[in-house]
């Protein structure tokens, strides 16, 4: 079984490498370096303005570390057919999953330690953390990630573990408890608590050897959703054939889609409008980024950020929607029905235009409410939004689609 994991791991790593090479192109690396630099600069500038014992510092620190503990997931590399093919080998699955745990823990802990390091100046400045506190915090951060991952292993077995196998418990409640104790109470007590919980999880995970009935549905769903989010990320940069999304009915959007006249020239408009409103993948990205942008803007007043951020968000959202152009390529009907393919780009542009205008309006409304005293900002923003959307939809989009088509052939 451990051989099986090794074999799968090496092909998994080869696949990841293939995609990572496509992700980390020169431009993207430059953009990332620039972003890290900008965030770092912003962080160091604002550190100087912070004072000791600000009331919100423990809240921010707790949320930060609960979020940090979510990074680095359990890779098990199980696949759908395992439920059939590995049926007789279930007794050995605990060893298999523990291999996955040992592989996953390395990257997960590296991330934890780096982000712990990043938090040091902030905690020193606002909470007056000393060496012992930082040491205890590091122990807690590492231990939390270990039991977070162990909880995910236990979850894949059909075994009652006092509720510790529940994701909301081991992923959220327990880390929240530990970091709340550290930032409101005593850091050493928090670290001791984390170690204690780790010990409990270590005992629970030994139990699975005694009763190794795998909950295949959960194990396979977990891994598929992990791979799906990886592929979704890669899909932003290249075509990933494994991406399959789900569909929601969303009756309330019928008001919009019903307005499309059922004429041949609207065939692709019909497809794109229905597809984008019901495909959870794309609409999810769209909604998440729009809400995120609106929330961020609600906190930013004056300066150039209220103008730049909406433009960045509009670009990001539009950019992410582009792969949907090819969404119907695998559908035989698109090739069989007498569609006029010249309409495809125009239809796609129409839908994207509507969606981006929607985002632009929301962002503009938020910015207007926040910067009511500074209507010049609002004016400049609206003009720039219009220019950006026009350039994006009619300049960039068709070129980008052509490039993708050429690279496919």
């Amino acid at each position, binding site marked *: 079984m451990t051989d*099986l994991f090794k074999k799968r791991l090496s*092909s998994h790593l080869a696949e990841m490498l293939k995609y990572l090479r496509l992700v980390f192109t020169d431009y993207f690396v430059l953009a990332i370096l620039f972003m890290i630099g900008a965030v770092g600069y912003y962080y160091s500038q604002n550190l100087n303005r912070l004072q000791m014992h600000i009331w919100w510092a423990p809240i921010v620190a707790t949320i930060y570390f609960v979020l940090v503990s979510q990074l680095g997931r359990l890779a098990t590399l199980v*696949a*759908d*057919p395992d*439920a*059939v*093919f*590995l*049926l*007789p*080998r*279930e*007794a050995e699955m605990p060893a298999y999953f523990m291999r996955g745990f040992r592989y996953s823990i390395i990257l997960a802990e590296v991330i934890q330690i780096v982000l712990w390091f990043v938090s040091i100046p902030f905690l020193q400045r606002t909470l007056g953390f000393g060496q012992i506190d930082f040491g205890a915090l590091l122990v807690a951060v590492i231990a939390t990630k270990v039991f977070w991952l162990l909880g995910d292993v236990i979850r894949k077995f*059909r075994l009652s573990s006092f509720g510790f196998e529940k994701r909301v418990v081991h992923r959220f409640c327990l880390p929240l408890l530990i970091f709340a104790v550290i930032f409101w109470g005593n850091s050493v007590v928090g670290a001791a608590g984390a170690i204690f919980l780790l010990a409990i999880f270590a005992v629970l995970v030994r139990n699975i050897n005694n*009763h*190794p*009935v795998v*909950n*295949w*549905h959960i194990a396979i769903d977990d891994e598929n959703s992990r791979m799906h989010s990886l592929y979704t990320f890669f899909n932003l940069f290249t075509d990933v054939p494994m991406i399959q999304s789900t569909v929601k009915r969303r009756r309330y959007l019928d008001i919009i889609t019903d307005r499309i006249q059922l004429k041949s020239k609207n065939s692709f408009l019909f497809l794109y409008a229905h597809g984008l409103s019901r495909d959870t993948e794309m609409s999810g990205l769209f909604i998440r980024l729009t809400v995120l942008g609106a929330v961020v803007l609600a906190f930013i007043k004056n300066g150039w950020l209220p103008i730049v951020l909406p433009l960045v968000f509009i670009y990001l959202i539009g950019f992410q929607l582009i792969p949907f152009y090819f969404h119907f390529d695998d559908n035989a009907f698109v090739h069989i029905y007498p569609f006029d393919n010249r309409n495809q780009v125009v239809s796609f542009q129409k839908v994207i235009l509507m969606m981006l205008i929607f985002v632009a309006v929301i962002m503009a409304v938020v910015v207007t409410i926040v910067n009511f005293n500074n209507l010049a900002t609002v004016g400049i923003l609206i003009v720039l939004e219009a220019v950006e959307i026009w350039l994006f939809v009619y300049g960039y989009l068709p070129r980008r689609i052509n490039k993708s088509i050429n690279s496919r052939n």
Partner: protein
Amino acid sequence: MTLKVKNLVGGYSAVPVLKDVNFDIKDGELVGLIGLNGAGKSTTINHIIGLLQPFSGSIAINETTIDQDVKKYKGQIAYIPESPIVYKELTLKEHLEMTMLAYDLDLDKAWERANKLLTTFRLDNKLDWFPDNFSKGMRQKVMIVCAFLTDAKLFIIDEPFLGLDPLAVNDLLDLITERKKQGASILMSTHVLDTAQRYCDRFVLLHDGQVRTEGTLSELKAEFPEAGDSLNDIYLSLARQGGRK
């Protein structure tokens, strides 16, 4: 007594699909699991192979339940799912190797058996191909070959005939008969009733999550004398009655 399902209540979520299902399969017996779409055939099978956990009741294979000894319980089963599931990244040969590895088969004997099966199902020249690209019928054949590679005591076959060519259907039935003679038990769910009538020793008729009736064809005929002579007639008349007693 190979398989014994007792008072099984179960399903996917909190709402039970199966309500008190009871039946058994003896050694060397082929039992047909018959029922309309949604009657609970696949749910029953998912419980037997341990993909679902019963809400109550028990399932034992040769007196072992899954809670007593997972390894022993699962090691006795070979399963052919309704829709073939294959590994995207493995070739046909690697699928066979995977099965040999999983069931700890003796490699020489297993390959001897495998070559015979591959020839029977005309897959012998496709060892280096990827089953993921095969047609549904061919993938189904891959699942059949993998299952019959093993020495399982209980074969669970979920609707095997869809998409198989007539020759393969015939070969599959021969395989089933051969294993039956060697003492293996087989549970087969199907909608192809005339084939079931010819080959199955007994039938379990599921309706709405309950065993409506079970027995050999002559027992069924005796129970429902007005329904007709063939399994098809009996089943249709029962199904139209909506399972009323």
